[in-house]
């Protein structure tokens, strides 16, 4: 595998997924390095959400395996775990809790149990701990610009605010991998810019960590149908499509969607000026390959690891495994 010398936190090995007789994904092979921000694009029904759900642990692959980094090694994904956070398209916030309590819920569940809380309430030890958790949640919300609305219920928040609360709720669990399902849909332009800025700021933290010789804290996978956003917020774009040439690989039956595009994408730090021309150009290329392409060769447009090997990687990919340990 070409990614041998990198610190891989997520790996898909020959992943197939069928629902009944419908072959959704066929032979997906993928390795994502620590600290990368990856966009996953594809047409409707191409299986990108299915892939996301397998990574998060909601679905299990029919064949092959999904491995995620946990406690020092790559381990097979079994069910949901706090090492992989997910921000759903509908945000899935709890309507009966205020923003801050939505965020502080994870620490409560992971650091205590029902009897622990009941007895702790009596003896006062729990109240102290809860205070710390709420302070932590508050800090995170302030960092994401939600200091003014943290005591509001989700129904009183705007779409963009809800999404940031959902991001905060995942971040407070300190996941190694954060998955975002269509984070850019249904938001107006002003909020879109804020969400992109949050992602860029998080990426910047990864790069800073690499520079200090530490492991970058967060790996992100964004599923989106907006090709320009895909190019804008990530350092790598992966496209999946049903229309690849399985006969060229001596397969009689079509096994389902697979990766047909995998290339570098430019991530910009929050205050850089965007190179709109380059973004448009790459978005057009992705459109041609992933959405319009027919009878594709699976290797032709998957140049990511070749480019990294040639030293073209930027962001966290400038740093080889070992540099950041």
């Amino acid at each position, binding site marked *: 595998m070409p990614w041998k010398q990198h610190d891989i936190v997520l790996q898909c090995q020959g992943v197939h997924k069928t629902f009944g007789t419908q072959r959704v994904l066929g032979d997906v092979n993928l390795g994502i390095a620590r600290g990368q921000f990856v966009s996953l694009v594809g047409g409707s029904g191409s299986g990108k959400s299915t892939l996301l759900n397998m990574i998060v642990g909601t679905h299990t692959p029919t064949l092959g395996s999904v491995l995620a980094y946990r406690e020092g090694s790559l381990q097979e994904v079994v069910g949901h775990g*706090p090492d992989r956070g*997910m921000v*759903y398209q509908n945000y*899935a916030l*709890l309507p*009966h809790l205020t923003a801050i309590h939505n965020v502080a819920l994870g620490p409560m569940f992971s650091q205590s149990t*029902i009897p622990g809380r009941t007895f702790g309430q009596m003896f006062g030890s729990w109240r102290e701990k809860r205070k710390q958790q709420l302070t932590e949640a508050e800090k995170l919300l302030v960092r994401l610009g939600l200091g003014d609305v943290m005591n509001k219920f989700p*129904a009183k928040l705007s779409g963009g605010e809800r999404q940031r609360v959902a991001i905060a709720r995942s971040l407070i669990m300190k996941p190694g991998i954060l998955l975002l399902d269509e984070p850019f849909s249904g938001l107006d332009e002003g909020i879109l810019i804020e969400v992109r800025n949050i992602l860029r700021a998080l990426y910047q933290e990864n790069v800073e960590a690499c520079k200090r010789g530490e492991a970058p804290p967060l790996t992100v996978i964004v599923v989106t149908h907006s090709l320009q956003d895909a190019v804008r917020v990530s350092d790598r774009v992966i496209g999946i499509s049903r229309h690849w040439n399985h006969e060229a690989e001596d397969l009689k039956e079509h096994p389902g969607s697979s990766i047909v595009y995998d290339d570098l994408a430019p991530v910009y730090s929050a205050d850089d000026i965007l190179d709109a021309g380059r973004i448009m150009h790459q978005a057009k290329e992705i459109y041609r390959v992933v959405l319009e392409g027919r009878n594709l060769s699976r290797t032709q447009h998957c140049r990511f690891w070749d480019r990294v090997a040639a030293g073209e990687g930027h962001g966290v990919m400038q740093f080889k495994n070992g540099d950041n340990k």
Partner: protein
Amino acid sequence: MQRVWKSLRPIITIRGEISQRQGQIIFVLALITIASVYSALAYSDTDKILPTWDKLWIGVGKVITDPATGDHYLWEDTFASFGRILPAIGLSSLIGIIIGMYMGVYGAAEAFLSRILTFLGNIPANALMVVFFSYFGFGLKMYIAVIISGTVSMIALSVYEAVKAIGSEEIYQLKMQGASSSEIVWSVLFWQVLPHILTAVRATFGPALIYTIAAEWISASDGFGYRIMMFKRSARMELIFPYVAYLGLLGIFTQTVFKFAERILCPWYEKGDK
């Protein structure tokens, strides 16, 4: 003239917005209509079916305090009947909530119970009453059994539907946050469906009152059902009408209590708009 028409127009317009004051006036008009129709019908002093206003007024005094015996029928019967209804609804809610919550999250519990509960819910509890008479006699146990058999499936099924309506994403999210199964069910989902639970429990008061009155008719020596039966034997409508009106007011009072509880316990919950 045009101004008067403009202010009256919303009254005959579909979804027209009438002012609060107009609403109040229309309500008072309704009361006046009912009172005048009654006055027109109840004119005879000898009519036992529709007592005159004077007789009715004496009847109201009598059900509050009977000058002959010194009994406070209304108060004593409220105490007796609610002494049967409240423990029964409490127990029924407890069972219904537990069953409904687990049916909403475990497919096996759903498969095991949903059809059976729908079946049981369709059996009128009044029809089962004879069975409970023979099992439990005529004491409190019988009332509890009748009311539970008539209301538990109502509560369980509405709790189940409310939990079922919650998106799977939310539950996955809770799992990612490290919540155990009990925490998902009781620390999160329970509070989230509490408004629906309150509505379901509130809705059981009507049927519970029906079953209680029916059972008291046959078996009790106090309570609303017993008293109405006694009044009916002597055909004393001037006593029955205040009783019936009181039951209506009691229903409105119960609803108000539940709405108040909802506002205190579920400040986040808004019907309609959101």
